[in-house]
């Protein structure tokens, strides 16, 4: 595909052609992502509604399918109110700082066999670095708003994100030990085979820790003390309205999709098929043989499942108290990950387990 793009844009001078080819890959991905975010908001309301015995939005378009567009139009035509005494520049930059890392991380996501926009070797570190950057949007939004609720929300979410980033990093260490590389494509490659050779089985505690930390990183329920509607109104984005608020919203949901995608790639075999294992060898030669092929569709299915888990846990669990969140992060998750990395090291040395050395 890249070769084709290069040929198609061959008439351009070299530096321009490189930029054009990269842009031609980024733009469709970002558009698809933003559409996904739009419909994720719709599905969130639907799923939570269904779990509460309601039917959710159903007025705009057939069964409410156009609800996200209605929401977007509403937010776009609203005025962006900048509070008096707010720090105008940082106030307006903060939403951008939260959306950019959420989208930029997708550059290293292995979407289908042999393809990622940027197939870099240090992809895992890149992901960690960019998730660390997303704190800035929150902390600056809280500070620049010149509002105590926003500031409290920013403080809470910064401390929370810093704490869970460590657990997340340790979980990734486990993945990189198992995959033998920092490159996400290689990590996915290492999980080839059926469901049982994906990393979720040998790394089960790390998978649980990673997913829960992911929920905490994105400030989603039950870890949404940063928003805490009942205590601090809406946390760091109380003062935002219109497009600026929409961007925060976009960033939150893009981050959700990202965490779901990373969980799928690192623990659930990315684009590998459910039916790839030898158990399903009987499918070969039948019209269903294509189900055994690795493809983007499998990644999408897995992402959708983890997104459902996000919504499911939001519909189920009450919000954590702040000190309990901190205890969970520091006193439970970090020791659990450390212990499991030890166990994994022993298994690696002893030669037990499905991973390659």
């Amino acid at each position, binding site marked *: 595909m890249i070769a084709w793009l290069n040929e198609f844009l061959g008439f351009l001078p070299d530096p321009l052609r490189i930029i054009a080819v990269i842009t031609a890959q980024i733009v469709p991905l970002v558009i698809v992502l933003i559409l996904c975010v739009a419909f994720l908001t719709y599905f969130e309301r639907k*799923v939570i509604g*269904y*779990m*509460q*015995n*309601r*039917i959710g939005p*159903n007025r705009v378009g057939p069964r409410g399918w156009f609800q996200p567009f209605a929401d977007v139009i509403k937010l776009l035509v609203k005025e962006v109110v900048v509070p008096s005494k707010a720090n105008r520049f940082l106030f307006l930059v903060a939403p951008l700082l939260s959306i950019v890392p959420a989208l930029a991380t997708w550059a290293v996501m292995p979407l289908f066999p042999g393809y990622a926009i940027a197939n870099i070797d240090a992809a895992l570190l890149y992901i960690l670095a960019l998730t660390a950057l997303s704190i800035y949007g929150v902390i600056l939004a809280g500070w620049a708003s010149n509002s105590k609720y926003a500031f409290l929300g920013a403080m809470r979410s910064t401390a929370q994100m810093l704490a869970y980033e460590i657990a997340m990093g340790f979980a990734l260490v486990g993945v990189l030990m198992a995959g033998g590389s920092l490159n996400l494509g290689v990590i996915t490659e290492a999980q080839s085979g059926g469901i049982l050779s994906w990393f979720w089985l040998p790394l089960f505690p790390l998978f*649980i820790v990673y997913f829960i930390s992911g929920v905490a990183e994105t400030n989603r329920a039950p870890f949404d003390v940063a928003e805490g509607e009942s205590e601090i109104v809406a946390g760091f984005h109380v003062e935002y309205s219109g497009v600026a608020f929409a961007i925060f919203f976009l960033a939150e949901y893009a981050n959700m999709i990202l965490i779901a995608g990373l969980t799928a790639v690192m623990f659930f075999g990315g684009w590998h098929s459910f039916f790839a294992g030898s158990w399903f060898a009987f499918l070969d030669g039948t019209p269903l043989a294509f189900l055994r092929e690795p493809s983007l569709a499998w990644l999408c299915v897995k992402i959708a499942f983890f997104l459902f888990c996000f919504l*499911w*846990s939001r*519909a*189920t*669990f009450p919000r954590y108290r702040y000190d309990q969140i901190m205890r969970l992060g520091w006193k439970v998750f970090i020791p659990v990950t450390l212990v499991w990395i030890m166990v994994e090291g022993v298994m690696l040395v002893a030669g037990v387990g499905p991973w390659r050395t």
Partner: protein
Amino acid sequence: MSRISSAIKTFSLWDLLIGLRVTLRNFFVKKVTVQYPEEKTPQSPRFRGLHALRRYHNGEERCIACKLCQTVCPAAAITIESDVADNGTRRTTRYDIDLFKCIYCGFCEEACPTDAVVLTRIYEYHMEEPGQNIMNKDKLLALGDKYEGMIASDRTTDAPYR
């Protein structure tokens, strides 16, 4: 023993799984939402909605300006002024109900000796301008005239239980 089992429970996230099971079960339960403008929930004949003033069959106002409703009203939403009418009877010259103050308790209806002020089953009404929340005598009488059928039948249905 119990410590071990509780540790297993904690680390297998057992309690969380139970909670998740509950929500997942409800996810597939048949939904009970009433699609409001198209569908409506059944109403009791005792439903207490918008107020109205009734008349007798001969067109005479029922209200005798006894001010019992004004007295009993817990929200002080009713204002009544009275005078002697042309035919020498005691009649209201002003009968205002402030819909913003009213709490729809129905005490006025209970207190009324002539069944003049009633609460109808109408609940879909709105105000567009300031001041429209005051229901004056003309508006109340007009409502009473318009919905006399509904009001009368509701009273008949409920009569055995009063």
